[in-house]
């Protein structure tokens, strides 16, 4: 069976989560590979969330926060970006491809941007193949995920 990436999207309640909602209302098309987890702000993102998601076999993680300067809590999204950069560094140090992690900024009015982000990441992760940490039983003999 063809590999389809599983993506975790850590979405800020005030922008990306609302944008995902709007994308649905707009009937914007995007792949069903994403699982959205709502956070009160991307400032809530802890490096542990990202690391453990990859450990448990998720193929890609998106952190989606407000536009810079538009954070409901002033600077949560700016802090999240620095944490994402730090997480990328640690993942690279561990030998893991940090391109599986990305942060995006968008407003709650950007339903189509949300769909575009999911499309972009899905394409990228299809190219990267399955997370090498996925449990063996989830793989076919060819190394693709069933």
């Amino acid at each position, binding site marked *: 069976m063809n590999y389809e990436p599983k993506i975790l999207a850590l979405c800020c309640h005030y922008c990306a989560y609302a944008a995902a909602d709007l994308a649905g209302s707009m009937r914007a098309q995007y792949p069903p590979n994403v699982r959205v987890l709502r956070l009160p702000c991307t400032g809530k993102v*802890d*490096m*542990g969330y990202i*690391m*453990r998601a*990859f*450990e448990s076999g998720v193929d890609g993680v998106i952190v989606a926060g407000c536009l810079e300067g538009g954070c409901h809590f002033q600077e949560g999204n700016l802090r999240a970006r620095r944490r994402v950069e730090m997480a990328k560094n*640690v*993942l690279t*140090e*561990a*030998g*893991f491809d940090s391109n599986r992690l990305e942060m995006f900024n968008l407003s709650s009015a950007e339903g189509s941007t949300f769909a575009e982000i999911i499309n972009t990441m899905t394409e990228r992760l299809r190219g990267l193949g399955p997370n*090498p*940490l996925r449990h063996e039983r989830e793989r076919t003999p060819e190394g693709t995920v069933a």
Partner: protein
Amino acid sequence: MIVAHRKNIQDLKAALTEYKNILVLGCGGCVTVCLAGGEREVGMISSALRIAFRLDEEEHEIREETIERQCENQFIEDILDEVQWADAVVSLACGAGVQAIAERFPLVPVYPGLDTKFIGILQEQGVWAEKCTACGKCVLGTYGAVCPVTRCSKSLLSGPCGFAHNGKCEIAPDRDCGWQLIYDRLKALGKLDTLLEPAPLQDWSQSHEGGCRVIVREDQRVKTTLDK
């Protein structure tokens, strides 16, 4: 506080590769405050190690614990079972904590997960700066509470070296000249005349130069010399 910084994940992995059961042990003291070895960092480093091992298809079990302080035996007692389970412990404490764990468990290999850097302060969020060398004979009172031993790159006690430029040390343009800071501070306090006095000889035997230091407080000991 004691300020530390985490070691490279690949270096840790290389040191631990022969052990199956690994306990990553955090400390709730100074290294939690400087965001290097607290509960959150234990989780992050453990995850990174698991990822690194699994990518190389190495089988290891990594558990996580954090105790109040690793430099006190009383708190170490809380993790006896976990240490007995472990083939090796990665201590995310300062050098004192690592050695306290090793002394308590003579047969368990203990590895430092951090590099202990210095005694310092949180200068601003995310920036820590060295302020004290623990020289054992504090002279801050003489120098306007700016430490010449630590803040002067050459630890000069009797005046500046003469190679500072615009208040910056010759070793790095972003490093303040310790003696400029001392001068400015004493001037602001109206106590520049204290610098006219010759600096007393520093007793370096009180510092680490005199060997590993021990302080004994008989009034605090449970078992005193009178009991013997």
